[in-house]
């Protein structure tokens, strides 16, 4: 008896040829900016401009401009930091883990997802840097520089210092990985370029790439090893971020479940942000043949799986609080769910636990409008998750006389707005001047996975 596997969904539809791939992607780089793009960039720059004022006041007057107080020493700053770092997890997961698992559907989304990762990590970095108060001294506090205090070195026992190393390594390795993938595509644009500026810029960026078989062989080796290195790196980054909390003695933070729970949450929010951006990009750039419903469905399945892991983690936390018999731990969770911040907890539960379960229905996970709305809902939920963990754990701990409430100031909002402006400015510049889809890799799967080729067989 012969069993044949069902034919896989094609990754590239509408009978695109290799030449079409080059044309469809490069033309976006070569054509003049559209009014829609200019408008989008102007809005991002406006956000960035307004936000810059909040950053200036934070630096000039100090972090007293924020709503943090003696009880709640970490609030919006670290919430936003963890949120952005989490978002920055999808890109390298897509390019590294899915490369190792030979998931070819990653080829048309990895470029933009990695770009998003890098920009999200840049945004995340703003918060720890700003919350130091005097960031110009940060080099002495965060890096093992020889100094005149002793030399009194940085404390390598501290998770906060591990974070410095984890995030800067993650950022630089992701950047290199992204750039290696861009080189062949820059060469394609260089060879098509007509203007002197485009020739000079893409000539410099493509590093003299010629596409020789020997270079491609090395390129593939380098990609594979980088993927192997980046895979544990992706898992380590949010693990170490979660150590910032897990190694402390604050009820609600001191739990061993944090590393896997944070990593799952990070992938969950990262994929949601990839979907938000890709749904817009594919529509505006007309890339429906490359980023197909299949891609959206597969990403939605990942959101559903990681969302369920996050849900299990929330319930495990509640169970462990009860089962441990520690009254402080029990109070922390009771206070989260029924205390003054119950609405944040309820938002988190609804957005992160209930909403991704909708994707069990094929009709919903292949519905673009629904996916778009849900991808935003997920990231709202994930923001509230970090808010709940940080603020509700701190605002009522061991000494009731120190209990306090947190409310953000305009400057908290302003700095958050600054990072949004930064993120979208960088993303729109990327979408205009860089090829948004990895042309070389899409071409390499075209023969085996395009719709026309499947019909021929």
């Amino acid at each position, binding site marked *: 008896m012969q069993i044949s596997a069902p034919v896989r969904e094609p990754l590239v539809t509408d009978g695109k*040829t*290799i*030449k079409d791939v*080059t044309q469809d992607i490069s033309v976006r780089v070569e054509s003049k900016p559209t009014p829609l793009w200019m408008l989008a960039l102007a809005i991002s720059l406006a956000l960035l401009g307004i936000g810059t004022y909040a950053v200036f006041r934070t630096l000039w007057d100090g972090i007293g401009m924020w709503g943090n107080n003696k009880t709640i020493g970490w609030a919006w700053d670290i919430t936003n930091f963890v949120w952005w770092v989490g978002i920055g997890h999808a890109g390298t997961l897509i390019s590294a883990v899915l490369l190792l698992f030979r998931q070819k559907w990653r080829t048309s989304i990895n470029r933009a997802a990695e770009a998003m990762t890098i920009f999200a990590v840049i945004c995340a970095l703003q918060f720890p840097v700003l919350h130091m108060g005097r960031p110009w001294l940060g080099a002495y506090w965060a890096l*093992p520089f020889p100094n005149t205090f*002793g*030399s*009194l*070195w940085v*404390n*390598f*026992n501290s998770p906060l*210092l*591990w974070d410095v*190393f*984890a995030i800067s*390594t993650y950022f*630089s*390795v992701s950047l*290199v990985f992204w750039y*290696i993938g861009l*080189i*062949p595509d820059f*060469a*394609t644009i260089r*060879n*098509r370029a007509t203007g002197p500026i485009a020739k000079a810029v893409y*000539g*410099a*960026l493509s*590093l*003299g*790439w*010629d*596409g*020789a*078989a*020997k*270079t*491609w*062989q*090395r*390129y*593939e*080796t*380098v990609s594979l*090893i*980088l993927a192997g*290195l*980046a895979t*544990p*790196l992706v898992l*380590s980054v949010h693990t170490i971020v979660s*150590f910032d909390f897990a190694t402390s003695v604050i009820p609600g933070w001191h739990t061993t479940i944090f590393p896997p729970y944070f990593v799952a949450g990070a992938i969950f929010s990262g994929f949601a942000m990839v979907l938000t951006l890709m749904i817009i990009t594919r529509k505006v750039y007309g890339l429906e043949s490359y980023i197909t419903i299949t891609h959206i469905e597969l990403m939605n399945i990942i959101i559903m799986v990681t969302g369920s892991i996050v849900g299990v983690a929330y319930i495990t936390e509640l169970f462990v609080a009860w089962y441990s018999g520690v009254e402080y731990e029990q109070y922390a969770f009771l206070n989260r769910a029924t205390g003054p911040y119950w609405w944040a907890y309820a938002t988190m539960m609804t957005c992160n636990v209930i909403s991704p379960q909708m994707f069990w229905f094929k009709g919903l996970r292949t519905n673009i409008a629904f996916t778009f709305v849900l991808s935003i809902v997920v990231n709202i939920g994930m923001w509230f998750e970090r808010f709940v963990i940080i603020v509700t754990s701190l605002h009522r701990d061991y000494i009731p006389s120190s209990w306090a409430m947190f409310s953000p100031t305009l400057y908290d909002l302003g700095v958050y707005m600054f990072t949004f402006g930064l993120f979208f400015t960088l993303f729109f510049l990327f979408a205009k001047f860089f090829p948004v889809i990895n*042309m*070389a*890799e899409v*071409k*390499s799967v075209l*023969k085996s996975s395009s719709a026309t080729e499947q019909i021929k067989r």
Partner: protein
Amino acid sequence: MAASQNYIVGLFNDEDVLMEAVHKVRKSGVKIEEVYSPFPVHGLDEALGYKRSRLPVAAFLFGLLGTTLALTMQIYMLAIDWPMIIGGKDFAAIPDFIPVTFELTVLISAFGMVGCFFVVSNLKPYGKPRIFDLRSTDDMHVMALNLASNPTPADQLRQILKDSGAVEVNDKSFE
């Protein structure tokens, strides 16, 4: 004075035809200078008889360097140069040093390997590649045969390329 180098260039528009052609051309005793492709073709390196890349070895050695540097640095700073008791632990609290050691291993391994890749492949800003055909970064695989390294007459080389499925055969010379 470098004499000009003359090449016969065959263009292929399908990776499977190209693979067959590489086998055929090499079987007929013709030396292929290089094949230029717009995307990685699986198995082409083996067909051309290239050895495996040694970049993984470079990555491993740089990784070892990273591990050593990271551990040495942390132990020197916290246990030798300025010992301090932190959280009642040993001065050289090795388990606490693992995260930073891991990160520096990955960092130095990745950057070292990529640096080697750039050097051996001669990738540098404003590097001037020899472009046999502009379409080699678009939709054509370009096979270049160097006339100097092949005793076979040029006409016969052209015929071999055509017979093995090249859609176009051109001459190209560089100064």
